[in-house]
């Protein structure tokens, strides 16, 4: 009677272990993270990280990008190169412009009325912000997965086929749907019920369905705007695993509130921050491991050690 509210530990903040500890190889033991083994945060440091900070042939090149909503500037002069077939995380506190920046990459932000964008974004060296570029074409090359799973109120099959259909896909649609669902690690769960509604799936399945829907258009880049923020830890884990697999064939940019997630999944991390003028700027960008273990900027260090944000 007295205890009406039960408090659960926040599953996404990995036991409040200081974030740097994820990179102290071998130090994160089972005892320090008493969780199911398969929920143990995976270390990016397991991966070979021989690349230098120089990004050759970036998939996406953001140059001096500034964004205004009406008269309010939200993003100021961000320049950022995004490496091909890697996962790049954008982190920072709420209102730092990271989602805005992400949504500029596939020209999604223009759907908001009163938005003004300056600067340039190139994909494979091709500028997106010039006359004659149709945002619709851009979005076919740069797919997006949103914060909340947003499947259409259609069947699983039609959800996946949606983008391909409107893009006039000529090939075998059944095959494309199967492949996309397989790549999104959802096929085995839904293969017997492709005519069932996408909304009947669980939240995590819905988000994987949305990923399958994005993949089915065969994009080069996938933007993910806090894709796990509405999911439980197990579903989050599956999406993170999936991102690792997808990174072998796609360039992934993920916005996340969750520093542990950035640390777990990304190769590179960009830290953004809005200061007194409320304009989001890029503070630091580099290899994820480097940024979390030895940040060069004091504000980055304060943020990743949880002193604010």
């Amino acid at each position, binding site marked *: 009677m007295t205890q009406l509210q039960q408090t659960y530990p926040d599953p996404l903040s990995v036991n409040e272990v200081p974030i740097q500890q994820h990179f102290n190889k071998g130090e994160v033991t089972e005892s320090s993270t008493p969780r199911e083994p398969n929920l143990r945060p995976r270390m990016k440091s397991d991966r070979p990280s021989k690349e230098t900070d120089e990004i050759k042939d970036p998939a996406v090149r953001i140059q001096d990008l500034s964004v205004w909503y009406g008269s309010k500037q939200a993003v100021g002069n961000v320049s950022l190169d995004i490496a091909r077939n890697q996962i790049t995380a954008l982190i920072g506190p709420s209102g730092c412009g990271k989602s805005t920046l992400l949504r500029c990459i*596939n020209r*999604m932000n223009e*759907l908001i*009325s009163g938005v003004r964008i300056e600067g340039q974004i190139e994909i494979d060296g091709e500028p997106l912000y010039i006359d004659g570029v149709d945002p*619709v*074409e851009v*979005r*076919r090359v740069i*797919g*997006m*997965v*949103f914060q*909340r799973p*947003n*499947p*259409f*109120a*259609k069947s699983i099959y039609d959800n996946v086929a*949606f*983008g391909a259909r*409107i*893009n006039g896909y000529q090939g075998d649609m059944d095959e494309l749907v199967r492949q996309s669902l397989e790549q999104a690690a959802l096929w085995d769960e839904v293969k017997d019920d492709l005519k069932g509604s996408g*909304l009947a799936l669980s939240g995590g399945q819905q988000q994987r369905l*949305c990923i399958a*829907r*994005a993949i*089915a*258009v065969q994009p080069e880049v996938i933007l993910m705007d806090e894709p796990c923020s509405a999911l439980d830890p197990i579903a989050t884990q599956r999406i993170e695993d999936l991102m690792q697999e997808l990174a072998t064939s796609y360039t992934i940019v993920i916005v996340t509130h969750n520093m542990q997630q950035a640390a777990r999944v990304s190769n590179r991390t960009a830290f953004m921050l809005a200061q007194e003028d409320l304009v989001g700027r890029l503070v630091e960008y580099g290899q994820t491991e480097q940024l979390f273990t030895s940040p060069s900027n004091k504000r980055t260090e304060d943020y990743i050690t949880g002193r604010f944000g």
Partner: protein
Amino acid sequence: MSTTAVVNPGRPQRFGHRRSQQFTERVIAAVLFGCAAVTVLTTVGIVVILFSEGLSFFREIHPVDFLTGTRWTPASGNFGVLPLILGTLMIAVGASFISIPVGTLSAIFLAEYASPKVRSIIKPILEVLAGIPTIVYGFFALTFITPLLRDSWLPDVGIFNALSAMIVVGIMTVPMVSSISDDSLRAVPESLREAAYGVGATKFEVITRVTFPSALSGIVASYILAISRAVGETMAVTVAAGATPHLTLNPLESVQTMTAYIVQVTQGEAPHGTIEFRTIFAIAMTLFAMTMIMNLLSARIVSKFRERYE
């Protein structure tokens, strides 16, 4: 759970102080129920009167003769309601040829294309259209639309004709379609539009493949409401289409609708208590049945086609 009270010594009693509030809550619930009951009782009363008077009519005139007869001249003993039904349906269908396309397209414009500024101008104007008394529409049809039709390409149109009634009833019900459809289009979550844009849909594709299907239940509901309104519309039709019960599909002739006939009878043409007077209850019963069937049909259609997004 033990039922014996264990009172902590030295501690004030914590429960049982809010009896008066509980009473207030009950009174509030009772008042609210009373208000709801008024509408239910009214409906029941109307149905009872309709049916008792209607049935006494049907004791004299067989329902089959009533429903299948093709001549409606109660004064000389012909009680075939088909001309009235046909007149009513013709005007309702004709009106929906205007209200559904114009209303739907303007709803799509308002919800998806119009800038907030344009919207803030057009939406109130549409709502004013809905607030104009229907007799004014009838007058407008008689003194403006019919002469216009005559002077332009339909010189043989009668002074009273079904066509001008269709046109004004159509215009009259546009706001009903556009306003409700606009609301249901705008109720479609932005996240669904974004999802479609995100895979490279054009604005038109987003609307036709995502927004519109998701809003379909509300849109179809608006159609049914508009048609029901056209079926039940009285004054404009009485003025514009006249009072000649013709079994015709020619919109250039005068017709009489069911409602227009009821107006005519209640104007005192038939003495109270006669069979002629009781025809209005039979007709009202038929109207009631028609709108009822339409509402049931629409519920069916909506549950079949809607794309639930919740």
